[in-house]
């Protein structure tokens, strides 16, 4: 089992969700987060003065999936979340030790 965390643009989320659904993936946890990359945010202005907004709102999708699905999933997110400009986001993949479905007590891959 692997955990996929994808931090993407808010506006690309519907696109990513549709793309995942089209390959049969509907389970996900979504969080509204704020963050910044190397560019340290964007510059805006207020009352004649510029300032940098250094934390930009983003969406983080978290999914735990069987190992075999990882490559396909990452590819789908990568394509559907891309605009080609700075700020498209990142995808992280990490191992998961165990999973339990609370209602039935199912374990690991059968709990996903």
């Amino acid at each position, binding site marked *: 089992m692997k955990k996929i965390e994808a931090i993407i643009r808010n506006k690309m989320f519907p696109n990513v969700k549709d793309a995942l659904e089209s390959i049969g993936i509907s389970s996900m946890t979504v969080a509204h987060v704020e963050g910044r990359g190397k560019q340290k945010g964007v510059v*805006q*202005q*207020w*009352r004649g003065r510029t300032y940098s907004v250094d934390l930009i709102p983003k969406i983080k999708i978290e999914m735990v999936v069987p190992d075999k699905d990882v490559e396909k999933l990452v590819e789908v997110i990568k394509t559907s979340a891309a605009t080609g400009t700075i700020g498209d986001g990142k995808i992280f993949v990490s191992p998961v030790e165990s999973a339990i479905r609370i209602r039935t007590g199912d374990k690991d891959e059968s709990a996903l």
Partner: protein
Amino acid sequence: MIDNLNTKKVSYLRTVLITALVLCFVFVAPVSAANIDETAESIANLETALTFVWLILAGAIVFFMHAGFSLLESGLTRTKNTANILMKNLITISLGVIIYWIIGWGIMYGASASGLVGTDQFLLSGADNSLWNEWWFQMVFAATAATIVSGALAERTSLKAYIAFTIVMVALIYPIHGHWVWGDEQLSLLSGSESPIVTLIGAALHDFAGSGVVHSIGGYAALAGAIVVGARIGKFKNGVPQVIPGHSLTFAFLGTLILAFGWIGFNGGSTLDGNDAYMNLVIVNTFLSAAAGALTVLLITWKKVGKPDPSLTANGLLAGLVSITAPCGSVENWAAIVIGIVGGIILYSGVMFNENVLKVDDPVGAIAVHGYAGSWGLLSVGIFSVGIGNGILVDAVYAAEGAGLIYGGINQFIIQMVGVLFTIIWAFGVSYLVFKLIDATIGMRVSETEEIIGLDICEHGVQAYPEYILEDGEIGD
């Protein structure tokens, strides 16, 4: 041929009509002579009624400016202080009504003691319909001057301290100065015909609807308050001004436009006479200046920052309005546009001067809009005034007496200059002392923790947007 015939017909008809009228006069006149007095009286009654209705309506339009101030000030500040700024505005008008009834009006318009201060009509004693009418229109102005202060002190001033100042403002600071300019035709210090200052300079101060009396007084009181209370946490980092964005430009713009609407009553009603046709000139000049002020700031910020700045442009519209408030009944249309342009330049420079040089934190720009642009408005009368009886002001009753600098006059300019100095010294000086006194007794400022959590929770126990803001639950720790 036909034209000729028609002309003849018309001139024949005219002869018949005139003859008929003359005959009417000869035979009927003896009867209607008895009615002439009655007719004159009913016309006078109608004129009075017209003034009553117009001033109640104009006062209502000015009253609505408090909705504008509320929206503008809450829009340009953060969500955590919204309920507090709304309360300060509501308290200002509520206190304003009562205090101006108890003492403010008497100080401003009561029988003059040497042109310095009014001494009777407290609690509106002896009032009749005429006085009630005047009081209503003047009361909304007093509350306006007081509420200007709330914006400049927003987001860090204690509610108790603000209430204390508002009482002093409406009871003394505003009406005493108001008495010097609007109080008494003979005695008033800056405008009365027998005042030593007026006789020395040879001109009476003209402040049509209160660039000085209302706006400058509010603006310089706000400056004194902003200095005493200090900047918001995070406004200056090592002396460098930082940006603290307000939470709603929608509110700020709606508020600005409501204020502009309010000026129809503010300036339009200030002829104090529903029969004075010059209210038409007043309205046109008012909005020419407003537009010029906004467009000027639009261009300045476009050039300086690269993109036109919305909230400063909105301030520019208000600066144009404040500037034209004194001269609107005394100048030509083109001059109104020039006055608005200069008002816009003063607004932009004033906001930058406050932040960069004075290091004063004014979240909504009230000091530049009302204080600096107000002073310019007073001064502009002395530059552009046509002079009563001249040119377009041939039938005018309420306008600046003397001609301005560009028409060769000098006295009007000098007295306007004196008026500017009086507003600054009086409003800033007295307010500074009052704020210091409040600071030493009640305390001007909320605690650092309260300021960070927000005045809504700490002063009122509410959040203006409870559904959308989830605080981290540390309130009260």
